[in-house]
């Protein structure tokens, strides 16, 4: 018993990721935390997307289930679980059954290396970013097989479109990522790294987020990635694989109930995964804003209070909505529920003020806040951009992003190695 407690405690002093420390207990805890956190994020994202889209289109969005429709995603999840699960008679049963699991597995496995903080990752791999790109590219297999196994026209066309799109944008995405990996090779140790934690630490050592590195090269790379990642996750304006007006629902037309919800879960967790890649590679990962300009213990304190303050702000907004609820007796339950939700947010905010919690959690907060910014962008794109035509999509991928990515890669390499190149040239001309 004592040995078990010591085994659990020993990790807390080790200052490593659970994977690096080789601690099975904490690795399991982290995996469960990431899984639960992701599921909650997907549920929240579902509600937020409908609300924000509705407000962009001057509608109210879900209002019936719970105060301001807060319980709508839970009602939806229940509906999906209770719905009849239909497998088409002519479908290829085994492949139809396996496909959603491939997609979900690929979408969740990538979170093994996502660094929420210097020690808050399940593990740190030597090949971190390569692993993320590789495993997330496996989800294409799930989509293709899902479309084929349905044995129906719309899903097949959707799957073909989806795989063509994902394979083409992966190329541009890879080039943008490689330009960042070149930038990491300029840290003190002067060796590059593919490890996700290493990439953020390189930005810390160079005192610069990679978006601003070699201006405007970093910015261009970030832009290429930001476009490619929308196409990679099949989201608007590149959501041709599931274009409702043409293909009903694309590759998951024949899926219903629980299996459909697996596709939904995978789509949203893939969105979070690519956003975390973008945040890690270009936006400094868990680093707080202005770590150099605003240094010192005072600024440290101010920035460490922000997570708590953010939650208190949310709580205050919720209480404001509570006051504005209709005073009709029928709305009493909803008003109490909303007040309870506000109290929960406020409690989280207060817990985040405790010094021990504050210091441990603030990197997770900054990482999540940056990812949340990307998630808002996704909704914003969907609300504002019209859908691309397929030939336009391919043109953007192959004729705009790919050449730009190649030029960017060469330019980054030249700028990064300029002193060595100059030395070589001098060595040749003035021996």
């Amino acid at each position, binding site marked *: 018993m004592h040995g078990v407690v010591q085994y659990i405690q020993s990790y807390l002093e080790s200052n490593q990721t659970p994977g690096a420390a*080789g601690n099975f207990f904490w690795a399991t805890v982290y995996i469960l935390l990431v899984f639960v956190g992701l599921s909650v994020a997907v549920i929240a994202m579902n509600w937020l997307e409908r609300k924000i889209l509705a407000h962009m289109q001057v509608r109210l969005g879900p209002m019936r289930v719970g105060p301001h429709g807060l319980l709508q995603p839970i009602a939806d999840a229940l509906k999906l679980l209770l719905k009849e699960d239909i497998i088409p008679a002519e479908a*290829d049963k085994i492949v139809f059954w396996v496909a959603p699991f491939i997609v979900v597995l690929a979408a969740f496995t990538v979170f093994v290396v996502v660094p929420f903080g210097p020690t808050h990752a399940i593990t740190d791999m030597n*090949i971190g970013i390569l*692993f993320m790109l590789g495993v997330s590219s*496996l989800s294409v297999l799930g989509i293709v097989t899902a479309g084929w196994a349905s044995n129906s026209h719309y899903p097949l066309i959707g*799957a073909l479109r989806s795989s063509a799109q994902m394979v083409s944008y992966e190329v541009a995405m890879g080039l943008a990522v490689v330009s960042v990996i070149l930038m990491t090779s300029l840290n003190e140790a002067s060796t590059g790294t*593919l490890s996700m934690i290493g990439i953020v630490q390189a930005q810390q050592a160079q005192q610069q987020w990679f978006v601003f590195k070699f201006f405007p090269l970093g910015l261009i790379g970030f832009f290429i990635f930001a476009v490619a990642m929308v196409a990679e996750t099949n989201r608007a304006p590149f959501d041709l694989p599931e274009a409702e007006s043409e293909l009903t629902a694309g590759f998951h037309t024949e899926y219903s109930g629980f299996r459909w919800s697996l596709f939904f879960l995978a789509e949203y967790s893939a969105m979070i995964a690519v956003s975390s890649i973008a945040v890690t590679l270009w936006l400094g990962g868990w680093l707080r804003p202005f770590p150099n300009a605003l240094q010192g213990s005072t600024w440290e304190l101010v920035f460490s209070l922000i997570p708590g303050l953010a939650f208190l702000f949310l709580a205050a907004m919720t209480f404001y909505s509570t006051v504005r609820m209709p005073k009709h007796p029928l709305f009493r339950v909803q008003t109490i529920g909303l007040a309870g939700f506000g109290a929960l947010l406020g409690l989280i905010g207060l817990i985040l003020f405790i010094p021990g919690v504050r210091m441990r959690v603030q990197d997770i907060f900054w990482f999540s806040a940056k990812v949340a910014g990307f998630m808002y962008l996704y909704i914003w794109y969907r609300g504002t951009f019209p859908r691309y035509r397929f030939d336009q999509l391919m043109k953007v991928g192959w004729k705009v992003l790919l050449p730009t990515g190649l030029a960017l890669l060469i330019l980054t390499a030249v700028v990064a190695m300029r002193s060595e190149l100059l030395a070589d040239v001098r060595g040749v001309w003035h021996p």
Partner: protein
Amino acid sequence: MNPAALPTNPPVATPFFFYLLAAVMIIGGILVITRKNAVHSAMALITTLLAQAALYLMLYAPFVAGVQIILYAGGIMVLFLFVIMLISIERTEKERQFNKQWLVGIAAAAALGGLFIAVYTTTTSGRTLFPEGKLTFAEGDNTQRIAGLLFDRATGTYMFAFEIASLLLLVAIIGAVVMAKKRI
């Protein structure tokens, strides 16, 4: 703290995992040739390739494993599936599955079996086909070491071979374009 006092992690490269992955690979390989439906074969092949990537991880070569997943499981197999899905499954189900080349098959199997036996036999003078390998645990900087072998000015011995291989691929791509498009 001196390194000796650090708790050592249990090694991943245990015989259990090796036999598990080897079994997955062999079963996958058998399924590839016995399934009549080409999509099922392709999926079995993907399983085999993923198990092979895991074997590379067991050999403390994460970079090779990652490249294996990206290139084979993620890239090539997607294109395979892409092509297979467009051919008619009904016709392939009726076709002969094996071309009954018993003689050549037996010869190839015997050659491969002989190679396996040769690898594991030691002659009376103590010589083996392969020298005794020395295991170095370089998992932490596997990528950097591969880069060093390929590109480093002092230690890079495979640069030329690497570039020649990529040139070969380029030739293949140009050849495919020329064959597919008469007028460019």
